[in-house]
């Protein structure tokens, strides 16, 4: 351990370090109580499936899908905003940020690692919610199959055909596409939140800003149409344009409403939407790094 020896080699960017931070973040988030949200999700689904028994089973499946996908979208967004907003302030508060950055870790690796950790948590949460949803759907579907078998006893071919259609209706591969678009939206929100939290003075402030962006991001398409229809004044158009440029258009990731009722997503369209999501994430991470690199800790 002679001081005359040259310093050990250091890699400017190390995926191993990013991975370590991402895993650490993921562990932190999963060991926290965020997953109580899943419990809430399960209760919501079970509660609503009780509420839906008055409808025909086709309608029940339809509404169960709508509610599950809607809840996944909302819960995922909430999780993305709240968990991300708390992260940087906590690391500063607990001074773990000092300990991490006092190691040879470039700040960009910290930003990236944190984001990947959150994205991993969102993927887990959405996956589990999806699993729960499919499980409930499965149980209900088997119940309906049994009823069918009871009422249609005898004609085996007709029964098989009916069950075939039922299954095709209920378990459509499109549901995977729905999950992916929800994941893309939550990732965009998480990256945006991470960016805001690099300059926000408090967690509340971050949540406030991102929630505002969330609503503006969902409404701007509507507002734009509205203004265009009004043939509005030049300034209001300019303002709408400015809003459209500054805020993300989140409606573009909202394909679940139609996917739930069976509108097919062409693969190319899904691909483009996901690429757009990745692009947003990249830009917000870049912006976050720009600010965070100079942040006084």
């Amino acid at each position: 351990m002679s001081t005359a020896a040259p310093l050990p080699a250091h890699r400017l960017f190390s995926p191993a370090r990013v991975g370590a931070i991402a895993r650490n973040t993921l562990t932190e988030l999963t060991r926290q109580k965020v997953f109580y949200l899943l419990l809430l999700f399960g209760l919501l689904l079970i509660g609503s499936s009780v509420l839906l028994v008055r409808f025909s089973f086709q309608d029940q499946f339809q509404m169960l899908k709508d509610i599950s996908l809607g809840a996944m979208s909302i819960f995922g967004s909430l999780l993305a905003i709240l968990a991300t907003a708390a992260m940087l302030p906590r690391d500063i508060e607990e001074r773990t940020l000092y300990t991490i950055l006092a190691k040879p870790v470039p700040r960009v690796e910290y930003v990236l690692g944190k984001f990947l950790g959150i994205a991993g948590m969102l993927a887990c949460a959405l996956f589990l919610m999806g699993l729960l949803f499919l499980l409930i759907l499965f149980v209900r579907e088997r119940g309906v199959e049994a009823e069918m078998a009871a009422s249609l006893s005898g004609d085996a071919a007709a029964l098989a055909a009916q069950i075939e259609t039922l299954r095709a209706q209920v378990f459509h591969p499109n549901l995977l596409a729905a999950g992916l678009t929800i994941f893309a939206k939550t990732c965009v929100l998480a990256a945006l939140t991470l960016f805001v939290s690099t300059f926000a003075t408090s967690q509340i402030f971050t949540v406030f800003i991102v929630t505002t962006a969330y609503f503006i991001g969902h409404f701007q398409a509507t507002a734009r149409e509205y203004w265009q229809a009004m043939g509005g004044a030049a300034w209001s158009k300019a303002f709408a344009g400015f809003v459209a440029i500054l805020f993300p258009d989140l409606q573009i990731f909202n394909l679940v409403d139609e996917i739930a009722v069976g509108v097919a997503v062409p693969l190319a369209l899904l691909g483009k939407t996901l690429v757009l999501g990745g692009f947003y994430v990249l830009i917000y991470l870049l912006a976050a790094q720009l600010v965070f690199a100079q942040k006084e800790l």
Partner: protein
Amino acid sequence: MLRRLLLALALLLLVGVVRLPFETALQAEQRAAGFHAARVGLDLRQRLGQTGFLAALSGCRAVVADLLCIEAYSAWERVEWGRLNWLFETASSLQPRALFIWEMASWHMGYNASRAAREDPRWKLEAQRRRAERQYLELSRGFLQRGIAALPNEPKLYELLGTLERDKFNDPLAASVAYGTGATLPGAKGYLRRFSAYCLAQVPGREVEAHARLRALYDLGPQEHLPTLLKEMRRLEEKLALPPEQRIYKDR
């Protein structure tokens, strides 16, 4: 750090200018593929109230539509027909791609509300009853027509429209057209074509065409030789006084 923040915002604005055309194109493509189908105007906000409007726009459009349907179910139990219609109007404009909403709405209007109006003791005169019934039937047809506009490839809606025209409006020609259009769509049930022909057979002056269509069905094979088909063919053979070589019932 303030300088960096301004730099970051400048970056976002710059990127915004670049992405906007791409996003507009993508959104148009999504619309063309059937997404973002709701017409969300300001009237919807008045209908849904602030909370519902926010929820509907931020990723829960389908859920809000479903909640409206659930509420409609209660309105039905309380026999509030006006409210029922209002709820389905709102739900269907929120989620025009949902087949089940159009189905439910047209069924409630065309079969429950119209029947209730027909039997409404408040109306003294038969003419009044008929008018009230007719209003609900029109509403039902309106739902189906808007549903067809939103889901032009859905044979089920044509079937419902045909049945409504046949049974409630007593208009076999309109029924035949609706069934017939539905029959041409992919995934259509086989009986639509038959129903279309049966209805056409009831239209005075269209017997020749109707017979030709029934004959075409008959020629498909014995699985099509259903009692109604045979009965209608026999009736038309008689009515048109066809020569024996064009008849399937050659006995008389």
